[in-house]
């Protein structure tokens, strides 16, 4: 009689109850006559049990009260309850009403994330005012479009710092958008403030998105701006970072088309 061979994946799927009836029946048959098959199935049952026991049970008491309060505050904001969070600090900061910042024109998910001490520039280069300050054309946002920045974007590999007349720039990553356009995420630290932006290459580099904070705004927390940026990258379908030779090739291709 021909001996059927079952690979580990099939036997594991049998142990996990993931096989359809027909295949499961043939595994069962083999198991009754082949000790090795039976042993391997038993091992998969055992490993599942071991993993399960080794992980902690997920009980509500494990959730730090600060995390719970922060999430509850988010829920209240989105779902409109009046309850106040119990812990101050991080949570309160997140509670700034979004319309107070004039951010209603941004997509919903962002507007909330953007209700921080940050300036956001949406696609098309429009400015949103920083809380308590007028958008400034000499500020960090305007500098993102400077010729020095555009040149550095064409020439600087990711992870490197570059000194510019008005500050220091660091290219974080290079990637392609869902539509294939070549884009780079970078940071600019200048006396007027710091900003993080995404610029994409069309004929020249154009800033598509930026998050900035004023130099004097000490309530700015970088990780919140980072979250805003992360949300943007996800929304626009940013691909995996191009590294090493891939990046060099993409950038040199961009230069040739100039």
């Amino acid at each position, binding site marked *: 009689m021909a001996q059927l061979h079952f690979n580990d994946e099939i036997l594991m799927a049998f142990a996990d109850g993931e096989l359809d009836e027909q295949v499961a029946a043939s595994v069962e048959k083999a198991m009754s006559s082949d000790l090795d098959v039976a042993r391997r199935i038993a*091992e*998969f049952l*055992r490993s599942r049990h071991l993993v399960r*026991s080794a992980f*902690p049970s997920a009980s509500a008491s494990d959730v730090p009260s600060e*995390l719970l309060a922060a999430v509850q505050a988010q829920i209240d904001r989105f779902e409109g309850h009046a309850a106040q969070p119990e812990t101050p600090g991080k949570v309160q900061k997140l509670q700034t009403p979004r319309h107070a910042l004039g951010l209603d024109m941004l997509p919903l998910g962002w507007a909330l994330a953007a209700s921080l001490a940050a300036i956001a520039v949406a696609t098309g280069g429009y400015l949103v005012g920083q809380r308590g300050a007028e958008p400034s054309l000499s500020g960090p946002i305007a500098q993102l479009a400077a010729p020095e920045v555009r040149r550095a974007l064409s020439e600087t590999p*990711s992870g490197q710092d570059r000194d510019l007349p008005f500050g220091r720039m660091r290219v974080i990553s290079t990637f392609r958008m869902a539509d294939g356009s070549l884009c780079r995420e970078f940071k600019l630290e200048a006396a007027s403030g710091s900003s993080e932006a995404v610029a994409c290459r069309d004929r020249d580099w154009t800033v598509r998105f930026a998050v900035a904070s004023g130099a004097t705004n000490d309530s700015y927390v970088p990780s919140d701006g980072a*979250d805003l940026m992360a949300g943007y990258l996800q929304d626009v379908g940013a691909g995996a970072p191009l590294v090493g030779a891939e990046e060099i090739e993409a950038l040199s291709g961009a230069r040739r088309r100039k």
Partner: protein
Amino acid sequence: MPRPIGQELVALLPRLRRFALVLCRSPSLADDLVQSACERALANADHWTPGTRFDAWVFRILRNAWIDHLRRTRTEGMKEDVTAQANIVGDAGEEPMLSKLLLVEIQRMIDAMPSEQREVLLLVCVEDLAYREAAEILGVPIGTVMSRLARARRRLVELTAAA
């Protein structure tokens, strides 16, 4: 107005945090990750299809938030202290046959595994998600889920048999 999901989200917090710990292995980072995932889930509540698994939907959001974080740190350089291991050893009372020592040992083995194996172990063996559901969360084919899972479990069996 999308359907309120707040209550379900709060109920899910312990499991979200456990998944976040598996992904990033740093309690403070895990809390930030959970918070960021909740924010995204609330903002996109209308994207969830009632009748489908709510937990799987939020797990996927959480994992995407983690990938975004990795994307940024990968090219910028890791800043988090990944050696700060969370103490997430399970409850030995759940299974009296397994000694605390063995549980600690298994936890250490799981911690030492590549993250792609850790996450699939949690989703299937602990969260009881079907292979198909895990594949959707991870954004990979079912075959990939199965091969990662089989490799991780085979390794665990080999290591515990040798002990």
